[in-house]
């Protein structure tokens, strides 16, 4: 595999771009095309999807055929194993939890949860600082967004006895 794939980063990018192009083309197929003089909603997206696919193929072929420029060990490899999977997952989870919690739980709990979950993503996590950060952020967002800007958001949502 390594001999065939000259530059794994390029190949991965190419595959991703081609996949996205196919996805958009598939989505655009369901839309009315119209003709050049009166373009339908699907006309321009279809052209773009084709262009994207072409660009993706170029990237893919470059990665398959051309030899990497500098030292091939470091820059050209994707290095999935060294990806920060845990921080990536935790930060994303924090955001998603906020989105899920904002209606039923209200701003206070969902903000606290989101900040606390994010603090877990750092290697230098400490429970005291994490709790303190969460508390500060909850207090701050209450002061700025609810009191200051008057957003129509309850501190505690309906699940917790709010409105």
């Amino acid at each position: 595999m390594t001999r065939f794939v000259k530059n794994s980063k390029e190949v991965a990018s190419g595959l991703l771009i081609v996949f996205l192009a196919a996805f958009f083309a598939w989505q655009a197929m369901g839309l009315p095309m119209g003709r050049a003089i009166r373009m339908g909603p699907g006309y321009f997206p279809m052209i773009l999807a084709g262009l994207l696919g072409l660009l993706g193929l170029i990237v893919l072929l470059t990665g398959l055929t051309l030899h990497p420029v500098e030292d091939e060990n470091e820059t050209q490899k994707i290095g999935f194993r060294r990806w920060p999977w845990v921080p990536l997952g935790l930060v994303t989870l924090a955001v998603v939890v906020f989105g899920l919690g904002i209606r039923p739980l209200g701003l206070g709990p969902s903000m606290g949860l989101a900040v606390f979950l994010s603090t877990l993503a750092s290697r230098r996590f400490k429970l005291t600082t994490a709790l303190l950060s969460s508390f500060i952020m909850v207090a701050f967002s209450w002061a700025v967004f609810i009191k200051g800007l008057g957003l129509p958001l309850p501190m505690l949502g309906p699940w917790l006895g709010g409105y």
Partner: protein
Amino acid sequence: MEIFDNLALGFSVAVTFQNIFYCFIGVLLGTLIGVLPGLGPVPTIAMLLPITFGLPPVSALIMLSGIYYGAQYGGSTTAILINLPGESSSVVTAIDGYQMARQGRAGAALATAAIGSFFAGSVATFLLAVFAPPLADLALKFGPPEYFALMVLGLVASVALASGSVVKALAMVVLGILLGLSGQDVYTGTPRFTFDMLELADGIEFVALAMGVFGIGEIVRNLEDEHTRTVMVQKVKGLLLSKEDIKRIIGPILRGTFLGSFLGILPGGGAILSSFAAYSIEKKISRHPEKFGKGAIEGVAGPEAANNAGAQTSFIPMLTLGIPSNPVMALMIGALIIQGIVPGPNVVNEQPSLFWGIIASMWIGNLMLVVLNLPLIGIWVRLLTVPYHILFPLIVGFCCIGVYSVNNNAIDVFTMALFGVVGYVLVKLDCEPAPLLLGFIIGPMLEEYLRRAMLISRGDPTVFFTRPISATMLGLAILALVVVLLPSVRKKREEAFQE
């Protein structure tokens, strides 16, 4: 002199208590995030966009612009004092600035940076005032084909001038346009790429995309190599420059200002490119090039003037044509749209108080920055000791509430989470996310002008090449692509042949 009338109007708008206050908040925040590494102007402006809803358009834009040029100032402070450029545009400043600081001349370096930035900012603001209105008048004569061609040229040029793979950057632009087309089609109301979700009928929220890619994605990237930041701050003393220093910096500041002003107008230009170009020019024309890298004051003066001038003039295409030249300008256009103002050449004529108010505020803001930066350096430096692991959870929290408050809709929060992952993956694959954002903003306009142009020409695509202005612009775009692609193609061919 019409321009003085206009500037007077601008100052009358900018010198109200409210607008001076927002200008101050903007430059203060800008300096703050410029000082803090790992937090740039793009996520900050994205985070603050929702807060600006309640403000009048002028105040909102004044504050947001203040963040942008304030960050240029703040970034150079940390670059000089601790060799840690807070912004990518101050990378060059760190080379000679930090060496000067190590030789005990931190004060002189900081003063040079401040003077250079202030001078360049003032000149570039003046250029903006002089050149923007005629450019807008010219743009008003454009029909749909010209606009389409201009946008294509803008997108291609921003790709061509950016670093990294051109093909990938082009792919990112196209992907951005496709994402930008999501939501209801303007002409027929047909939902596109919404997966039958009612919440996506208005398309992907711009703030969610920008915050995801540049806020959340960036956080994960910073967490990747979380190392202890040891801060060794040099003592700052002697802010006054000697006569010899002043003589040495006049030339570089002038050259940097004009180079930066010019490069800032080009799409994809702006502060970063300007500072790099200014440094290499100063090194080339210097009689003592060997001193560069060892604390040459010219190496601080030129790039600092250039990056500030570039930051300032990049407002020209944004305000006159409605075309963003970098992600920050894309956010500014987003802010205009949020305020119900259609970006484009009409802004200058229909919203004179907005246009001239912003320009006047830039000058006031630059003055504030000089005052703010030199005496308060001690405070900024102390801020650097705030560790990132304390900072980033707060940023996550801010992004969450910020993006939610745009539409009071949780779908935007989820969109931001998705684009956080997307942004991280793209950066890992060496696909620059900045062109994606530009494509996203321009996409809907591009489609509209294409459709209108085709309607006018009765479906004949040659219309783009028979009208002289549009043909010239498309020709330039193709030329730019060919030029950029050629050397790399040649290089890669050679490598391929060597096997």
